[in-house]
């Protein structure tokens, strides 16, 4: 069994070591370069704001997701698959695009305030705490819906049949079937959203800011960009790392449902939910959720289409750079995640390898970038390697998601065919070539699509270092927003959406359709 497997396992261990160096190593590099390690009152405020907004965002996302997931789990209607597909969009949507869409609805000149003005009511403001939470709910509610929906669909259809045979009504079904599932699934789903919101950067940059609404990641950005205060940045990053590490540690003890993949289109027959009132309520819930997601997206598209043809050349070249970075990040992250998954599956030191695979979730991409630049700086001018460094950072940051996607089906493949492969002496490369890769292909395509889309939309490390002539597309969007050229910003944002989902679609469909 060991022939050739050794080299693959060693490569997987190498991936884990590189991840540790990229996350912990860069943090150490930044920390060592620090002259002081200040943590002032403003930083305490940032810490408090970060935790508070993440907690509220997670509670709202998950709390609101429950009725939506329940409605989707028990109703069959035309367009149901489309709605579930729509729920998958915001996770991959470039954050800046979501912000632009929300501004179009809830912003100063948005349709909501226009309506309020008609009624003679005072306007609402999207900036600050509530705006940050709104954006996070917009981005994470659908993901929470999909996670909770998958929990619902793990309840065997036979249980509902048994419940009907016993004459249980909706309340009893909830108590005996649905609540036990939710009690298991909700903490995990909530912690995932909490973790994502902890390291929020682009939302806080555009809708937050100021003393009252700065996240740790935004504070790191300000410390690096405006003050070049490495000590403060390192301290903030260490605090953020600790916070996220504790969250990840808690998360590893919880059930985390999958928000991706197949199986979300089954609807078990239900006998307890046939009442007209319940049906009406469910359809209202689904319609409201769909509108909440669709209206901002539609407004972005509508605002963007007219300007698309007239975009300046700089935006197009930024788009080309972003695509190149996304492809490079995908080429790095997916093989790395596969090697790591193979090493984890082999079992030796699996816990440590898996923890290494989760490290980037706790890391700050800004600190990661800064650390790399500090290392590279003496050798070559940082601007010149801005794009390769961004690709590497994006690959590392997206790797945990790819790993989460790959690991369960890999275990399934080994459970089903591992014995046969062993009996035939299939090991190492031959096993990879003839068993793992062919069967894992659709999942690898999905993982590649996720990595590419996440990298396309990321406004992270690059924002710090790249000059105007090396901007990526999200950076160009942000600069246009900053210059209040909203028409061009909308057009560039539309281009960003098209490219992100175009890449996702190409990878996902390409792998699924290709004949094995």
């Amino acid at each position, binding site marked *: *069994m060991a022939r050739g497997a050794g080299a693959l396992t060693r490569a997987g261990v190498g991936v884990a070591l590189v991840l540790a160096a990229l996350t912990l190593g860069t943090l150490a590099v930044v920390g060592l370069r620090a002259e002081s390690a200040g943590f002032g009152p403003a930083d305490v405020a940032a810490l408090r704001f970060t935790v508070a907004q993440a907690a509220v965002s997670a509670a709202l996302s998950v709390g609101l997701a429950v009725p939506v997931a329940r409605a989707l789990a028990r109703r069959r209607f035309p367009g149901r698959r489309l709605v579930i597909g729509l729920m998958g969009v915001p996770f991959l949507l470039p954050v800046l695009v979501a912000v632009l869409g929300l501004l179009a609805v809830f912003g100063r000149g948005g349709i909501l305030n226009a309506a309020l003005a008609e009624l003679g009511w005072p306007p609402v403001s999207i900036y600050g705490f509530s705006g940050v939470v709104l954006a996070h709910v917009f981005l994470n509610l659908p993901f929470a819906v999909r996670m909770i929906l998958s929990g619902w669909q793990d309840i065997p259809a036979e249980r509902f049949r048994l419940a009907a045979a016993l004459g249980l009504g909706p309340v009893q079904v909830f108590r005996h079937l649905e609540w036990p599932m939710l009690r298991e699934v909700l903490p995990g789903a909530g912690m995932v959203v909490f973790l994502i919101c902890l390291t929020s950067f682009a939302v806080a940059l555009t809708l937050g800011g100021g003393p009252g609404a700065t996240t740790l990641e935004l504070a790191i950005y300000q410390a690096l960009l405006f003050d070049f205060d490495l000590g403060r940045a390192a301290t903030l990053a260490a605090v953020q790392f600790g916070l996220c590490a504790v969250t990840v540690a808690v998360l590893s003890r919880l059930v985390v449902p999958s928000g991706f993949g197949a199986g979300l289109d089954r609807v078990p027959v239900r006998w307890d939910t046939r009442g007209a009132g319940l049906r009406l309520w469910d359809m209202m819930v689904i319609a409201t959720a769909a509108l909440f997601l669709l209206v901002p997206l539609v407004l972005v598209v509508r605002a963007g289409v007219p300007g698309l043809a007239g975009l300046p050349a700089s935006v197009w070249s930024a788009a080309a750079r972003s695509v190149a970075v996304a492809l490079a990040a995908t080429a790095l992250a997916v093989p790395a995640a596969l090697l790591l998954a193979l090493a984890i599956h082999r079992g030796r030191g699996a816990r440590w390898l898996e923890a290494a695979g989760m490290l980037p979730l706790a890391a700050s991409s800004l600190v990661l970038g800064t650390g790399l630049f500090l290392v590279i700086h003496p050798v070559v001018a940082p601007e010149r390697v801005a794009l390769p460094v961004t690709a590497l950072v994006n690959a590392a940051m997206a790797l945990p998601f790819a790993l989460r996607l790959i690991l369960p089906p890999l275990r399934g493949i080994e459970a089903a065919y591992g014995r*046969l492969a*062993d009996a035939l002496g*299939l090991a190492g*490369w*031959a096993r990879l*070539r003839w068993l793992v890769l062919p069967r894992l292909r659709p999942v690898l395509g999905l993982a590649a699509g996720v990595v590419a889309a996440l990298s396309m939309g990321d406004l992270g490390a690059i924002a710090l270092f790249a000059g105007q002539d090396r901007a990526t597309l999200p950076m160009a969007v942000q600069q246009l927003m900053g210059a209040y050229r909203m028409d061009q910003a909308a057009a560039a944002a539309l281009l960003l959406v098209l490219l992100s989902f175009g890449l996702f679609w190409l990878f996902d469909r390409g792998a699924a359709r290709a004949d094995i």
Partner: protein
Amino acid sequence: MLTFDRVTVAQGAFRLTADWSVPNGARVAVIGPSGAGKSTLLMAAAGFLVPVAGRILWQGQDLGPLSPGDRPVSILFQDQNLFPHLTLAQNLGLGLSPRLRLTPGDALRIEAALDRVGLAGMGGRRPADLSGGQQGRAALARALLRARPMLLLDEPFAALGPAMKADMLGLVDEIAAETGALVLIVTHDPADARTFAGQVVFVDAGQAAAPVPTETLFSDPSPGVQAYLRKD
């Protein structure tokens, strides 16, 4: 000769012991109540379970250090005997080379093996395009190509109808005759043992008894065998 030398195999709290030998080329049926450890015995011989005590020997050589793929063994499981994403020719090719580096001569041997089991010209098909019986034939064709001196069958035909099963047992008989292989077949049907096997290993209460001639087992059954035959 296959020898179980004071072997104990453990699966959780379950223990199975065996201490006997069977000669090359023998046909041995392994029978006994469900959960008695029939499959466990085969898994130990195939290298999927490591004995906690004793040794399993082939021609006097300890099989302990050998991984499943390196043992002088071909095995057919209850299911999942073919990779669904590979063609039949590829599935058979894995029996010749785990890296699937096949020469033109190999391709001819694969075609001949398919022909031998009645699947001529079907090398390009995937397992999903085949019936259950055809899948069993393909797996047997691979065992024919591997030509290992031991053929272990873990109820691979349990899902087939009686006529089909008889066909498959006939095919196993022919293939074993051609390759001179020792056959150990797990079955829950005493009739299989009667028609196919010269010897029977009765597995019960954590013990795999030494093989006895099939006629003796059925004409002069021990109390354990009597109980088993009555229950089933």
